[in-house]
């Protein structure tokens, strides 16, 4: 009993000093007293309050612990994702300049955006890239997965080397490949120009690097899928006289249908969000003349958003493009959920 009273007292003391600290920091803040200790005082005050709550003796401690356990991550999540997300949607209806906005413009940003040829072009080129990249990555990855599960002797070494590019950041790899396209390839073929100077070939160049970087990762997912096919079923098929190709088409493929769904959606979303390689290899160059306007020929949506806001300083338009970007991705994810739910019902 004495123990509990003592604890209550300590808890109350800690709580009180925490509250005082926070209040004093807020006072300094609200009355514009610049003080170097303001931030530290506020932080320590908040910690003391949490600690005081933690010390407070009650019967149902579980509740307090629950709140304290959730609070730090939720707070970080709120200030980095939730609040910026809500503000972001809100800003897309204003003339926001990155710092403040002066008026609401309704759907003006959306209308202006869809009338800009560079955005429409970027949308188109991103869709083209996404479809191409999804196809090449999955075809390559599946072929590599078959190679790596076929009982080759050095399969672990092959797997590791196919997987390695995926671990290095797209920025660094992008610069390396810029070197390869600008110096190495032209030196191998006499008199040829760099692929990066031609709008169509530049897109193809990004596709090569993206496939090279990503196929090894998707390959490992296919490998995991292929290895989960039970051995005895395959052996039974072999006894019944099914050849390699037949077991692949009629046994393995249907059994790893789920893996295909995962890989296709994963590559779809990641190709659509491609930024690092795009930024480091071409940064939108070379330009292409459409109508009478020069348009960056390899600027995907993510880079277009970045350049609109950061390079051209048009924050409201950039944010509006980002909202549309989000809506497209959300629709893709909903389709994926729908597909996997449907599969579950069938099973």
């Amino acid at each position, binding site marked *: 009993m004495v123990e509990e009273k003592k604890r209550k007292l300590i808890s109350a003391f800690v709580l009180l000093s925490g509250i005082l600290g926070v209040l004093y920091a807020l006072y300094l803040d609200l009355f514009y007293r610049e003080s170097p200790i303001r931030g530290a005082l506020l932080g320590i005050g908040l910690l003391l309050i949490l600690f005081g709550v933690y010390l407070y003796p009650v019967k149902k401690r579980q509740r307090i612990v629950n709140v304290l356990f959730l609070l730090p991550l939720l707070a970080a999540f709120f200030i980095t994702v939730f609040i910026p*997300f809500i503000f972001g949607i809100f800003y897309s209806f204003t003339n926001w300049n990155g710092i403040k906005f002066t008026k609401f413009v309704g759907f003006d940003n959306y209308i202006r955006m869809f009338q800009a040829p560079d955005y429409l072009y970027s949308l188109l080129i991103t869709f083209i890239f996404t479809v191409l990249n999804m196809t090449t990555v999955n075809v390559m990855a599946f072929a590599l997965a078959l190679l790596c599960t076929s009982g080759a002797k050095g399969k672990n070494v092959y797997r590791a080397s196919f997987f390695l590019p995926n671990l290095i950041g797209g920025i660094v790899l992008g610069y390396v490949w810029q070197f390869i396209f600008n110096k190495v390839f032209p030196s191998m073929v006499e008199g040829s120009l760099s692929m990066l100077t031609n709008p169509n070939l530049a897109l193809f160049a990004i596709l090569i690097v993206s496939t090279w970087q990503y196929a090894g990762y998707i390959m490992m997912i296919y490998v995991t899928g292929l290895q989960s096919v039970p051995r005895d079923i395959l052996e039974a098929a072999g006894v019944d006289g099914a050849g390699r190709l037949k077991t692949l088409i009629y046994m393995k493929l249907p059994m790893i249908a789920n893996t295909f769904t995962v890989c296709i959606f994963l590559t779809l979303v990641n190709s659509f969000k491609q930024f690092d390689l795009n930024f480091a290899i071409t940064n939108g160059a070379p330009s292409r003349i459409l109508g009478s306007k020069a348009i960056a020929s390899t600027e995907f949506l993510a880079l277009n958003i970045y350049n609109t806001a950061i390079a051209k300083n048009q924050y409201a338009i950039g944010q509006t493009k980002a909202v549309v970007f989000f809506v497209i*991705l959300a629709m893709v994810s909903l389709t994926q959920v729908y597909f996997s739910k449907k599969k579950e019902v069938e099973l």
Partner: protein
Amino acid sequence: MSKRKITGFVMELFAIFLSLIVLSPFLLVLFNSAKKSADIVISPIALPNNWGQLLTNLSNVIHNQNFSYFKSFQSSLFITAVSLVFLTVLSSMSAWVLVRNKSRWSDVIFMVFVAAMVIPFQVVMLPLLSTFRGLSDFLGIRLLSSYTGIIIAYLGFGGSMSVFILHGFIKGIPRELEEAAWIDGCSPEGTFFRVVFPLLKPVQMTVLILNGIWIWNDYLLPSLMLGLNGRIKTLPVAVSSFVGSYVKQWDLILAAAFLAMIPIVILFLCAQKQIIQGLVEGAIK
């Protein structure tokens, strides 16, 4: 039988050939980091004739003001390590609370986390900067171009997926273990840290690897929050600002790329199995 052997041999050769093609960009980086600028112009695919040049180029790059390798390496390491520690511990705590206390609130919070995984960085990056600027002014704690701010940002962005992965795993842990600890007089927080937390190791490994690779290689978030030429630079940002200031000096750029790649390559060689497994499991969940 012999036909099978021949097919096997051809397959083996083909696989070796493919691996070499896939690895060739890395070899090109190594070769050309060991050449003088003029030698690269003559032939970028020839073997270097003097490997000593590699050290000269590397030391030039390391001591370069724009790159400052050791400083940016330290910054990257510090940001990644601290974010990972907080991320793993805090998301384990949150996931445990969300699984073990079924209520309307826990469902809502979990749904918000799951929904947030769809949100691309692009849609929050611009308001994030203004929110953090506002918060810095209000709280008097520096959040932009500071370690505190970027670590909080990684907690927020990595948290939702980490909670999602851990949530799935904790659901499979029998409740009886915790009840036994509770009956023995263990406090709720003690039950979590002594009983549940050690059981989470395998999934925490996945969470660590998945987030670690992402944070280490991330470019957009640090470039926006720390600035391209701020006082803190992560490795990808340093490489990018180095490339910007030494346009077309490929010997130096490739040496910088070499230095930026080497830590991950070494890590991969040491913990290959765990890294591949971690990344694959993260994708399937």
